[in-house]
Every structure is written in structure tokens, then in C-alpha cells.
């Protein structure tokens, strides 16, 4: 049984990089370009984990995560962003089972590693 991951990200290049990498690692990948579509995908696909950008046009990642938590308390949500804003980080860290990764501090291989770790804990 393949692990299902939902990637919510508005940068098309970054989506392609992540999708290629996760598929090569044996994941079933669904992608969405913003928060609204992300929520729809969570309801339809029921992924094992959500990897999302924070700053996106339309609904942003933090808002989407809050909406997802309203009906799904369990699916792990990992934020992946360029933001290094401490206020913003704090906002996410306050809520349980969210993880926060900074794009510039982590390689693609490390992202996969962290996601796998997160899933094996389940």
C-alpha cells in the first residue's frame, strides 16, 4: 500500500521537484495550487500526510490547516516555506501536530526523510 501525500504549493517548479522526488520514493502524490483546492483534495483523496506552503495566493497554508483540523484531527500537516518570520512560525507551532520546515534550510532528500519519519511514528 503506497503512502498518499498531498502537496499544496503555488510554485509550479517546486511542485514538480517534490512530486518527482516523492514518486521516485514510492509515494502516491496529489497536488493542489492553493488552500481551497487543498481542502477539496483532503476530503476526496484522504491523504496520509499533507505538505503545504504557507504563502499562497488565495487561501494560505495556515488558514487551510485550521480548516482541515475542523474535521480531521489526525492527518499530519507539514509546512514548507520560505518564510523566516518568527511571528508566523509561532502561530503555527502553537497548534499541535503541525511541523514547520524552511525551504532554504533543508534539502529535498531531507524533506523526504522527515516525511517518512513522521509517517512511521503514526
Amino acid at each position, binding site marked *: 500500500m503506497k503512502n498518499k501525500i498531498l502537496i499544496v504549493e503555488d*510554485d509550479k*517548479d*517546486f511542485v514538480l*521537484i*517534490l512530486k*518527482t*522526488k516523492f514518486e*521516485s520514493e514510492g509515494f502516491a502524490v496529489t497536488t493542489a495550487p492553493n488552500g481551497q483546492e487543498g481542502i477539496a483534495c483532503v476530503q476526496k483523496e484522504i491523504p496520509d500526510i499533507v505538505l503545504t506552503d504557507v*504563502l499562497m495566493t488565495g487561501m494560505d497554508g495556515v488558514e487551510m490547516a485550521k480548516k482541515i483540523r475542523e474535521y480531521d484531527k489526525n492527518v499530519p500537516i507539514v509546512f514548507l516555506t*520560505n*518564510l*523566516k*518570520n*518568527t511571528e508566523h512560525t*509561532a502561530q503555527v507551532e502553537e497548534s499541535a501536530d503541525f511541523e514547520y520546515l*524552511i*525551504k*532554504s*534550510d533543508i*534539502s*529535498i*532528500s531531507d524533506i523526504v526523510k522527515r516525511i517518512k519519519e513522521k509517517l512511521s511514528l503514526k
Partner: protein
Amino acid sequence: MTLELGITLLILVSILALGLLVYFNNKNSSTNRWFAATTFMMTVWMASNFLENYLSSFNLASFFLRLDFASAAILVCFWIFFCLNFPQPENFLSIKKKFVFILSAIFFAILSFSDLIIKNINIDNRISFDVGILFALYAFFIVINIFGGYGYLIWKYRKYNSIEIQRTQILYVLLGFLIFGSVATVTNLFLQSMLPVALFRMGIYSAIFVAGFTAYAIVKKKLFGIKVVLTALLVVVIASLLMVDTLLLTKNLSLQIFKGVGVVLFMIFGYALIKSVIKEIEQKEKMRGMAIEIDKAYRVEKKANEELTELDKVKNQFLMQTQHDLRSPLGVIRGYCDLLISGTMGKQSAKTIDVLQRIQMVAEDKIRDVNNFLDVAQFRLGKGVVSLKPGVGLVALINEVINAEKLKARQNSIYLKFETAESEVLISADREKLKASIFNIVDNAIKYTKSGGVSVGLQPDIHNRKNVLITIKDTGIGIPKDKLATMFEGQFMRTAQAQKTAEGKGIGLYLSGQIIKMHNGKVWVESEGEGKGSAFYIELPL
């Protein structure tokens, strides 16, 4: 009848005197001129209004009735001009409009002597008449101008700042004219034929409010600037009366001398009084000027503060956007390299991988430059960018830095090692920022080391374990003694003198210094001199 005559005369004279006083106080002021003109027309209107009911000759009574209507048309015209010039002259109406306006007032004034406005005048019992075909139009002209003037003054009143004296001046003058105009319109224009003569006179009597409120404003609120004149006038009148009494009415010489001394004393007293009034006015003027200045300064500062807050918001948005826009493409370049190097897109040759690693390294360096730059921007803009959290492992953190820089060291053919006896040392830190600051120092050491290498060490204070010391020693080009002190100052921070002696080290070391300071730590560098390597020390509290 005598009482009515007396009251009317009193009001008439006081209004006329008020107008003359205001006019002669400053003939050049259009405000004063229009006030005098308005009060003069008021007296004409009041006199004719009184006489039309007082005289028993039909011809004279009907003449004054028509003059009553004619003068009212001119009066409202002057009233509007007064409003336009009070408290300061303003060009609210164009000359063309003013001309049309004056013409229409004259038009109604002339028509008052025809049967178009009033006709069939009768003085059998009391004066009465029938309205002419243009009466409604005439009434409309009168009412619209009276109330238009009120509206305009109210509008001006609201425009003035609450502490400006003009506002109070407008208030008093407006009140006086408001009472007079409203009463006169109701009693004399609309209820003319219905009211008994005694009540009908209310229109004339209400003019006393104009005199009263204006006089009050003159004395208390320095309207038309004639408080001094009023005082002087009083002093002169009393002095003259005393002099007449002394010189003409007193026959006894010794009594004359006695009274003469009294007159002189009074004149000295009067002079002192006038002087004190002038001084008082000057003082108040000064105080008011200061109050207005303070108020203005306060407003300016308030506005500046609001603008700053707004600017701060824009600045933060700008920083966020810049972070996003600069880092995103670099992250993408690094990500694609990652895919290719890790073989996700198929196996690559060793040469390709080497090139990809170089591309990736450039991208990573640039990402760090961008991070440093933005952090510096945030520091310089006074935004708190460091948030300390307990439980940050220094050994793991330094290992991450070493791993990230290993490749660069290998490509420069130098060694990079980390040696410590500790398994882990936990401190309170902002992990990302501290990592960036240590990274900058290690990266700097690698950059300036051509042979040998860089060794990083970590040891807690042996004596009391209050601090932990991180050392970064290299065998590089070293640092001249005179430059050691300025190593952690950004070039942009240096004085012109220091810029001549120290060569620019970019923003990396400056930022490292700032971050370590915000961790309540110390950072310094030692070197035996050029070519003899250098040692960087970071001391952080445990």
C-alpha cells in the same frame, strides 16, 4: 407710544453707534466695512418699520412701508456680503455672481415701490396691505439669503479649530443675527398683517441681540480688535464730562482747582487703564499664538506617527515579499540539482554530478546571502528577529554546519573538522539564527584558508560551567592587528576613518556578531598577524 419710541430709538442708536465704531476702528478692513453697512441698513429698516405704524399721514406711512420692504432687500444683500467677509474676507462667489446678486437685490428694492410686491395699502386702523403677484418671489429671496448666510457661517464655524478665536467670534455674531433674522422674518414678513402692532415690533426689538452679542464678542473675544477703542472712548467721554463740569458748570475757583486735580488724576488713571488693556490683549494674543503653535505641533506629530505606522506595515510586507521572491527561485535551482544528483532522473556521470554540486553550492551560498541580507535589513529596521528557546543542542547544530560546508572544504583541498569531548550541550537559542551566525564564521574561515584547514571546537567553561566556548581556528591568511577590533562591524556601519583602514568583510560577520550579542554572548577574533592564521571565539551563556 412714547415708550415704544424710546425703546426703538435706543436700539437704533446703539446699532448705529456699533456700526460706526466698528467702521472707524478699521476703515480698510472689508469685514468692518460690511458690518457697518449691514448695521446701517438695519437702522434704515428699523426706522421705516417703526415709522410706517407711527405716522398718521397716509402718504408718509405708505412710503415708509415700501421703504421697509426695499431696505430689507438691500439689508439681506449686505448681510450676505458681510458673511462672505467674516471673520476674514473670502472669495466664495465670483465677481460675476456677486454682480447678479446685487442686481437682484436692487431689482426687489425698486419693485417694492410698485404694486408688484405689495398693493392696496390701508392705514385706517393700523397699516395693512395685500400681497402683489411677486410677493412670493420677494419673500423667497429674503428668506433664502438670511438662512443662506446662517448656513455659510455655520460651515465656517465648523472649519475652525476649537481653540481658534475666530470660531467663538463667529458663534456670537451668528447667534445675534440668528435671533434677529428669525424673529424679524417671522413677525415682519409672514405675520405682518396678522399680528397686533405691539408684537409686530418684536422684529425691531430683536435687533438688540445683534448689538448685544456683537458688543460682547468685541469686548471678550476681541472681535474687530476694538476693545481698546471702547475703553478709550469711555475714558474720553467721562473725562470730557468732568471737564465740562469743571470749566463751565463750576463757578468757585478753589472748587475748580480741586476738581481740576480730580480730572487730571482721572486722566492719568484712564491712561494707565488703556495701557493695561493693551498689555492684556498683547499677553492674551501671545498665549493664544503659543496655544495654536502647540496644537499645530501636536497635530503634525500625530500625523507623522500615523504615517510611520503605515510605513512600518508597508515595510514588513515589502520584507516578506522580498524574502519570498528572492529565495523561491534559488530554492528551485537547488531542488532540481538535488533531483539530478540523487539519481531520481536517472544516473548521471561523475562529471555531471560535480558540475551539479557546484551549481547547487552557488545557489546555497546565494540563499544564505539573501537570508543574511534580509536579517540585516530586519536588524537595521529594528525588527526583533531573534527568539530564544531552550533545549537547543550545540553539538548537533555545529555538525549540521560542518556537513553543509564539507564539500566546499574538499573542493578547496583543505580539512574541516569538529572536535569536542561533549556528547551534547543544550542552551537557549534561536536555532536557525545561531546556526547562520556560526555558519558565516566557518564559511569565512574556509574562504580565507588556502592550505591546511579549519578546526572547530566546543568546550564548556571548566571552572563554573556558566558559559560554553566555540572556537573556529584556521591556518589561513590571518588578520593584521589593527583590523582585529573592526572585524565584526559591517562596512556600512563603519566611520569614514575606519573605512580607510579596514577592508570590507561584507555583512556575514557583522550579522554573526549581532546575533551572538542577542544571545547575550560574546564574539572576538585573535590572530598572530598576516599569514599566521586566525582564531574566532564565540562565548554563549549556558
